[in-house]
């Protein structure tokens, strides 16, 4: 079981690097969608006795992260008529290097942190840290609002991975609440992206510079 889980986490970490290295928005969105689905099935691997609520959360996560949010982003992308990240603040090769370095660093840091015996040998902690770092690189390094939202999603995926450590111990009610909040959050972001597109006729966040000191 642990091996399957680690394989999936490794896959998610690979998808991080794919998202960092790609300049085409459709493929970034697709990468994030696949990562979301991979994450969505993980709770089923961890729980030994699958309850209906856990199943519902897994189905919900896959549906929202794998289909609903990517659809939303793709619509925004088509409306804005862009499909490429041109002139990012941090280029694709440097951000790939940062991501790779971050992944190695995450593995190193995770060794220092004490883990419970049942989590020893699991990639959850390094996977979570690497995804959070990847998310930060994309949030800071990209200029298109859609890429930044993708970065935010990867950041959230990282935190979700970490949350799996607590899955058995905490009531599922809390997980459900957290998932709901995140979903609504991304919906709201999607709507604002749409409004920015209409107000500024662009999704280039470099144009959002009226407000400054």
């Amino acid at each position: 079981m642990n091996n399957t889980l680690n394989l999936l986490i490794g896959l998610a970490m690979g998808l991080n690097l794919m998202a960092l290295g790609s300049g085409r928005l459709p493929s970034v969105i697709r990468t994030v969608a696949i990562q979301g689905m991979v994450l969505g099935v993980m709770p089923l691997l961890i729980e030994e006795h699958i309850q209906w609520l856990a199943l519902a959360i897994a189905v919900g996560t896959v549906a929202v992260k794998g289909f609903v949010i990517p659809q939303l982003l793709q619509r925004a992308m088509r409306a804005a008529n862009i499909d490429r990240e041109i002139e990012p603040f941090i280029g694709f090769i440097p951000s790939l290097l940062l991501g790779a370095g971050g992944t190695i660093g995450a593995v190193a840091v995770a060794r220092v942190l004490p883990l419970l015996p049942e989590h020893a040998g699991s990639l959850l902690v390094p996977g979570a840290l690497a995804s959070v770092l990847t998310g930060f690189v994309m949030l800071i390094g990209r200029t298109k609002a859609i890429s930044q939202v993708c970065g935010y999603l990867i950041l959230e995926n990282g935190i979700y991975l970490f949350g799996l450590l607590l899955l058995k111990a905490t009531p599922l009610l809390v997980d459900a609440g957290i998932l709901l909040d995140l979903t609504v959050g991304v919906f709201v972001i999607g709507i604002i992206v749409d409004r920015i597109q209409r107000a500024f006729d662009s999704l280039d966040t470099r144009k959002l510079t009226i407000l400054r000191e």
Partner: protein
Amino acid sequence: MKELLLIVVPFVGAALAAAWPNQRSRPWLLPIVGLVHAVLSLWLLLAPPPVKPGAWLAFDPLARAVLPAVSLLFLTCAIYAVSYLQLRTERPNRVFVALMLMVLGLLSAGHQARHLGLLWITTEAVTLAAVPLLHFNGTPRAFEATWKYLLVGGTGVALSLFGSFCLGYASLHGGGNGDLTFTTLTSQGAGLSRPWVLSAWVMILVGYGTKMGLAPVHTWKPDAYGEAPAIVGAILAGGVTTVAFTAILRVRAVVHAAGSGAIADRTLIVIGLFSMIVAALFLLGTRDFKRMLAYSSVEHMGILVIGAGFGGAGIWASLFHVWSNSLTKGALFLSAGNIRRAAGARTMDEVGGMSALTPISAGIFVAGLFAVTACPPFGPFFSELSLVRSGIASDHPWAVGVFLACLLFAFFGLTRLVFAIVDGRPRTASRTTGKRFPETFGVIAPALILMALSVWVGIGTPAVLRDAWSAAVVQLTPTP
């Protein structure tokens, strides 16, 4: 039971507002719900209910020490909102009224949350519910501000979730059973895994610090406060930031119980002083009086966490300052909103001589300036005085020195800008329209009430409030 009503009543009000058919009468729901909420919270302040140790939601001493201030601020803002929304009949107010009430309900839940996960859920929900309030004006600038608020604030709350998970894992690692109420976490004490507690503290401080608007993660604040309607700015500055501050206080108590309190307090003092320095520098430079309020808010958030870092009497002073700051900031935001509407602009380059055009609002604005820069007889003077005394008593002379210097520079910056707007020859951007802004009772009275409350909380601090703050300090000081 009454403590649950604090949450339920605003939610019912929000549902009513969403279904209410009439655009003109809908805003009246705000003061009605605000009044019920204020009565309930003051009642609970006078007669605190018993707290079950394992409860996820309870009107505990910390909620009792802070929530009534938020409630009073909301009530006065709600009264203002009725007149404000009558001035803005061109914009539909269904979403605005419903979400204002949602924010009130979520703030009540957040202040009463005694569970790590529940606290995070409510904070995130408040963040999201405030989004449509921020772009109520619908201008491109408002959307720009909203985008920055969402991205910076969203990253902040994501980090605080990460920190909450780390704290949860610290508890699991220390043999906990997954019960993440603050009571249980505190009672685990030194059993919590130290590396995880420290990671959690860093991320929670950055995460909830973003929500509070501490430097260097305050960048959303000037934009959001500058573009949002005055009432929204007041609620954000006096209510939403308070939830984040109580979250930091609750987690700090856990970190103290885990035996890493000295590190936590040092980081609080450093980040607080840094916020004050950054705020003072920007206050000396800004030319926009609504952004000025945001930097002043950054400064006061710095003051709050410095007090928390002093511990004991410092926390008492911080809770006092939550009251004086919320009430004073409310008066400043509302009077600034009037001046902004009358002048049609927000920078000292375009606006001047407002004491002739809107004499009452300008008067309140100047009084608010003296209040917020800690001049007697207003509340902030007394709360900051007790904070300075606690700093000296707890042997932090350097911190107190920097604190006082920042207050001085902030005073220079604020007076420079406020008097440039209030004094001189009348000059506005909207003079060509020829219509003068009427200072009606509805837009003046709320600001005056808040100013009066600010004086009252400073000079005549009631014994019940002092007791409430002391009880909260006891709650937040774990006995080893």
